[in-house]
Structures are given as C-alpha cells and as structure tokens.
C-alpha cells in the first residue's frame, strides 16, 4: 500500500476517547462511509469501528473458586445444579464447561436428545443471580478432612468467578448441508436430507475477526465486550489457523483465526450469556462478543469496510464427509447469498438457515460503540498479536 496517508496511534485514539471526542461507528456503518468518502478520508474521520457476534460458542466455560468451608475440603468431584465441573485443580478451584450435560441427562438415548440443561445454562443462571446447588465430594486428607459439602450458592458467594473461553469468535465458518438420505441433528443445527437446507453460523460483515483479517490490531490484551461486560483477548484460541486460503481482500474463505477470551463473570449480563440446547448434539452457551477495531490507517478502514458479498465460505457435507474427517468443499458462497434466504447449488435452490443472530450482533456493536463514546471504554493495546 506504500506510505500511509493517515497514521494514528493507540494513545492518540485513547486520548480522544477519554475526552469524549472519538468518532466511533459500527462495522455496518463504516461500509457506507468508505463507499462515500474513500478509505483515506474515512480513516481520517473514524477512530474506532465496533464489531459484534452472538452465537453458540461451545469452547466456553468458567473458572470458579467456591471458597474454603469449615472443615475444609479438597474437591474431587463437583456438581453445580447436577452439572459436573472439573476439579483437578487446587482444593476449591473448579472449571465448568459450557457443553457439559447434567448428570442424569438421557443424552441421545432417545434420539435426538433435547439436552435441556448443561454448563451453559448453569453459567447463565449464575450470572442471572439465581441460586444454584453446589455438591462437592472429597476423599479426605490431613489438610482437607471434609468429604462432603452441599450448599445453595449464588454468584456472589464465589470468591472468584471468571469466564475463560479457549476458543471463541471463529473467523468465518463452514456452512453445512446434509447429502445423506436422513435428517441429521448436528452442532450446525437440523439438516434435512439430500441437501434440504444449508445452515451457516457467522455474523459476516459484523464479525470481529473478519474485520481485521490479518489480526493487525487483535491480540493478547485487546479489550472487548464479553457477555455484556468487559473482557480481554488473552491468547489465540485453540485451532487458530491463519493459513487458510484468502481472497484478494485478505479475507479467509473458511474457518481460520480464533481467540481465547477472559472476563469477570460478576460484571456480565445474563442476556449476553445464554444457555443453549442443540437438539441431538448437546448443551452449549450462546456468547456475545464485540471487538473494537482502531482505525490506525487507511488499510484498517478498508479492512473494516468489508461487506457480506466480499466474504465467502465453503459448503461442507455433514451427512457423510464431516463426521468421517473428509475435507471437501461442494462450493463457495458469499454471506450476501446466505443472508438472502437461499443459495443455488448444482442448479437447485436451497433454503439457508442462520444460527448466529445478526440482530443481536448488531446490538452488541451498538452497545460497544456507546461504551466507547461515553469515554470509559478505552482500547487495549495488544502486547502480542495473533499468529499470522
């Protein structure tokens, strides 16, 4: 791109935010601004672009410390509202994962199982201020003699509670069809036989990592909207893979980058962390994430102006290929096509079904915009950007 005509530092932008002078727009609004004024002028005018996504994110969970009881116990097995938590940590530290089904769940015994309650629901209930039942079994040691603790607790009773999601906000994702001859129930939703519908799960032009395709501004220390509160990117997420084919605009054409995020559960809101039940698959958590992207120069203005018709993904068969580990694409479609309600595959019209809420993604981007405009939410300077 040669010498940049516009150059702004994080410090300059943060100074403007603190003074209440920063110009903040959403990833939808920047599209028109760039179209109208060009990237250079847009970069001059706009300081921050806010993104958002609200979708099932299975790789999520929370670390909880339930505090010492008397007599003390070293947790060996733990259940919260009957949902097992992992206790292989120090005495009263546990981790509850979003996809953990309740102990007595019939799972898929009567197929497709409904998975009414799991880790995601439990985390939501805690954030909603509900009382939950904590059961802890210990095997007894000299220092931790207690063998059973049973109590009703709320989020306030926990000494510490923070969300720690090892993989969220996938930069793009496959869209799913089913080429087998029976209905299947997957983490990508219900898929009718013989390509009866195609399901997709991305906020497209609003999605955080699709607005910063080379992770120039997203990395360890980036401050984000997480579950309605403040969170941070703390590492690249599991399965982060920047080496996915990209379009001329730099945008990946399949699942690529991911982030690991953390945030204080006590500052989150129940409407942005929702328990989910995916029929035939399992419980999950629907997580709201928004990332502010600083417009450091005209390149960032161009990146954030990406629109649905410029973002492509692959059609993958979940009937046979995916479960067998076969990596095959049946075609490429844009999010504009997916959002239109139908795509054409081999001459056949197929209805499309979203799993990620575009409406809520937009709301998150707007909330984050307000937070920044209000002057209290400044940008975190990444100490190490995601691997590229």
């Amino acid at each position, binding site marked *: 791109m040669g010498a940049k005509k516009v150059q702004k530092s994080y410090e300059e932008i943060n100074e403007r935010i603190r003074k209440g002078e920063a110009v903040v727009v959403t990833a939808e609004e920047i599209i028109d601004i760039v179209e109208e004024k060009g990237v250079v002028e847009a970069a001059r005018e706009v300081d921050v672009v806010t993104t958002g996504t*609200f*979708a*099932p994110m299975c790789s999520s969970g929370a670390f909880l410390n339930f505090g010492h009881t008397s007599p003390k116990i070293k947790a060996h097995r733990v259940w919260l509202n009957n949902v097992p938590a992992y206790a292989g940590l120090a005495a009263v530290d546990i981790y509850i994962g979003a996809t953990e089904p309740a102990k007595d769940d019939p799972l898929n015994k009567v197929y*497709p199982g*409904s998975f*009414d309650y799991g880790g995601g629901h439990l985390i939501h209930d805690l954030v909603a201020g509900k009382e939950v039942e904590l059961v802890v079994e210990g095997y007894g040691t000299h220092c931790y003699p207690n063998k059973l603790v049973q109590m009703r607790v709320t989020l306030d009773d926990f000494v510490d509670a923070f969300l720690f999601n090892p993989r969220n906000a996938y930069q793009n994702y496959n869209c799913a069809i089913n080429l087998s*001859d*029976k*209905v299947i129930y997957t983490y990508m*939703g*219900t*898929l*009718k*036989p*013989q390509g*009866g*519908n195609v*399901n997709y799960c991305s906020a497209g032009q609003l999605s955080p990592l699709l607005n910063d395709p080379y992770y120039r501004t997203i990395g360890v220390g980036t401050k984000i909207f997480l579950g309605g509160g403040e969170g941070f990117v703390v590492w690249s997420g599991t399965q982060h893979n920047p080496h996915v084919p990209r379009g001329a605009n730099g945008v990946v054409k399949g699942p690529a980058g991911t982030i690991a995020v953390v945030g204080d559960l006590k500052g989150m809101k129940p409407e942005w962390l*929702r*328990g*989910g*039940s*995916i*029929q035939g698959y399992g419980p*999950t958590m*629907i997580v709201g994430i928004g990332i502010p992207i600083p417009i450091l120069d005209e390149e960032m203005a161009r990146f954030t102006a990406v629109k649905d018709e410029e973002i492509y993904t692959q059609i993958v068969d979940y009937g046979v290929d995916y479960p067998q580990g076969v990596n095959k694409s049946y075609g490429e479609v844009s999010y504009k096509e997916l*959002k*239109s*309600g139908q795509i054409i595959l081999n001459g056949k019209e197929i*209805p499309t*079904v*979203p*799993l*990620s*809420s*575009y*409406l*809520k993604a937009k709301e998150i981007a707007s909330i984050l915009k307000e937070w920044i405009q209000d002057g209290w939410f400044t940008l975190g300077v990444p100490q190490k950007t995601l691997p590229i």
Partner: protein
Amino acid sequence: MLYTQKIVLRFSKKTWDKPIVYRLAKDYNLIFNILKASVFPKQESLMVLELSGTEENYHRGIEYLMSKGITVEPIEHDIERDEAVCIHCGACTAVCPTGALSIHRETMEVSFCTEMCVGCELCIKACPVRAMKASF
C-alpha cells in the same frame, strides 16, 4: 354433521409413496385439504391435513392411517413464542414446515406468524433457547 380436524401425519420411509391420503376420500368419504406437505422420497415425511366428514368416518379414517404405520397427531396445542427469550438466531426456520417462522431479510429479524402455524411443534426442540412453547 360435518366433523373437521387438523392433524399432523408422520410417514416412515416405507409408506410415503402409497396413495394413502387419497384412500381417505375414496373409502371413507372424507374431504381433505393438504395444508402442508414435506415429503422426501425414502425418508421420514410430514404432512398437515385438514379432514372433514362424519365423525364416524373420521375415526375410521384415522384408524386406517394408523394401521398403515403412520403416526397421527391431532393439532391441539397453541404455539407461542416468548419474545423475551427469542434471540432471533433463525435456527427454527430450518424445521418450520409452513413458513410461520420466517426471517425478515432486511433486518434479519425472525418473525412468528400464529396464523400460519399448524402446531407441529418441531420448532420447540430446534430452538436452542426454548423460546417456542406449546400451551395446553
């Protein structure tokens, strides 16, 4: 007196291709109106029917359907959406056979049209946050 009922039929793989529904008219003198059909060759299919006739013929017709291995469920529940719970994801539109649940493309808002709903209840478990509810 004319007896009218709305029912949901679920066909297994084996029965889909038989002209069963037409026998209802021929042998049981029932007037039928197919409100919705999603029939896939060689797989489970679903059909929503409105049947009218004498009450006796209606029950004989239902018995006939069941004898052919078809699951028959009357539509007796009103389906409601809890607006405070719905997150407008769109997952339910994969299963709704009538288009009662549909997406407004401009805003990507998911709307629920009670008049178009036939009460098949497929959306209840397809909705990840359980916004769709049957009231008795």
